[in-house]
């Protein structure tokens, strides 16, 4: 009774579909594949990034940072992936970065991810605990595709440390004054995703300070905006002539524009990098740079 088996009908329908496959669809599929292969190939062979100062000409820190940017070695020549080395030019402070140990990363990793994603460093851990209570440890969160956080075991972290040797997760030994109020008390750690102000024992993120200094204040008001609305990405901090700044990429597209224009639009859009300063309880973007020698923007999830 093979003809009564629903699987048989399904297979028959598939075969029928194969026979009537529109060659246009095939051509479109191949074209898309070739375009993506092209982008992937170009992404691997990016030229050394070159920046141009587009706003802040004549401002000492903007001019000095331009020189530093153009002398910085970026991972894979992609400034969004991390910095392998930054020259210590005249006027810039040596923040004395030291790599975190695996134990320190384990302590803080989920907090950084949870904070970035939910503005709440404890949410993921609370959620994991409740999940375990309700479903048992055997029933993994990850297996259900509910949330995609990397493994936090020492083994996995040690593997990451080896893989990210060129751009390690670091702590600055110098305490910074990120709000420029004259008191240098900020303990700052940094990975490829950005910087975090933490307590001295690396047990907690100072959420209030992170929001005040690095966040888009209007976006913070929106309860629907549950990710941390960072003003730039990935954030890097630096000190210049006794003041502290941060920088990172930003663009002028809002959510709606990005969504409607799709990937193709921002593959062609130049990256814009800003330098920001937090002073007198306000954050301002004081310098803007354009990454001029990239023909495309690499779409990274």
């Amino acid at each position: 009774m093979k003809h009564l088996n629903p699987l048989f009908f399904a297979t028959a329908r598939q075969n029928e579909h194969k026979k009537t496959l529109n060659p246009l669809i095939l051509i479109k599929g191949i074209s898309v594949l070739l375009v993506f292969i092209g982008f992937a190939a170009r992404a691997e062979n990016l030229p050394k990034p070159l920046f141009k100062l587009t706003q802040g000409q004549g401002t000492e820190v903007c001019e000095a940072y331009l020189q530093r940017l153009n002398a910085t070695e970026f991972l894979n020549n992609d400034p969004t992936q991390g910095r392998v080395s930054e020259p210590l030019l005249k006027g810039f402070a040596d923040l004395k970065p030291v790599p975190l140990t695996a134990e320190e990363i384990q302590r803080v990793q989920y907090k950084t991810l949870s904070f970035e994603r939910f503005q709440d460093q404890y949410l993921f851990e609370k959620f994991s605990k409740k999940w375990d209570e309700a479903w048992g440890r055997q029933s993994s969160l990850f297996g259900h595709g509910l949330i995609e956080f990397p493994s936090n075991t020492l083994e996995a972290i040690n593997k990451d440390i080896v893989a990210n040797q060129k751009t390690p997760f670091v702590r600055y030994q110098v305490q910074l004054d990120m709000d420029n109020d004259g008191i240098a008390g900020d303990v700052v750690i940094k990975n490829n995703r950005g910087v975090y102000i933490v307590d001295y024992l690396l047990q907690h993120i100072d959420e209030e300070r992170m929001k005040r200094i690095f966040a888009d204040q209007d976006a913070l008001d929106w309860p629907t905006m549950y990710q941390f609305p960072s003003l730039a990405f990935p954030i890097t901090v630096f000190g210049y002539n006794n003041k502290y700044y941060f920088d990172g990429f930003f663009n002028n597209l809002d959510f709606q524009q990005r969504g409607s224009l799709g990937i193709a639009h921002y593959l062609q859009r130049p990256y814009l990098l800003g330098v920001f300063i937090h002073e007198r309880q306000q954050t301002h973007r004081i310098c803007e740079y354009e990454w001029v020698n990239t023909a495309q923007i690499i779409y990274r999830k």
Partner: protein
Amino acid sequence: MVDSIFKKIGFLLFMVVIGSNSAAALSADLPIITLSVGLPPYPLPITEVPIADQCGFSYIIKIFENGRVDYQGFHKIKVPGKREYQMDKATLKALIKKFQDAHFMEADERVWLPDIVRSHYLTTYSAIRFRQGSQEATVFDNFPFPNLKSDIIRATKAGRWGVNEPSLCINKGVKYKN
């Protein structure tokens, strides 16, 4: 005489400046109830980002302790831009009572699996935040308080800004209503 008046004015201005920068003043500026739908026009960095619902509204309604209502519409909404409204005390009091009666502040305990954590996608549609003193709680997509969103819209008379109307969507050049 004139000198003392100047001193008093100076002191007053000083207090205003200090007051406006103090933490207490900042917390007083925060809305007690916020309803947001969709996402703000936030210049995005290149990172994991939610893609806005292409057919959805984007607006925010903030209600302050003194009854002031701030509305701002951004995306596919009948009335874009800022609008203000002064809610009367009785309506505000009744609205706050609804939040208290619903035990909104305990939402975190009851909704221990917020939709945003369970969701594979980084998007949500609407959210309500309620502040009382130093406490605050946020719930997403009306769960578990299905009526509070419409209570806020009714109390603020936000219907006139088009928040109750279906939003216009554009898909492949064809307009349709969702």
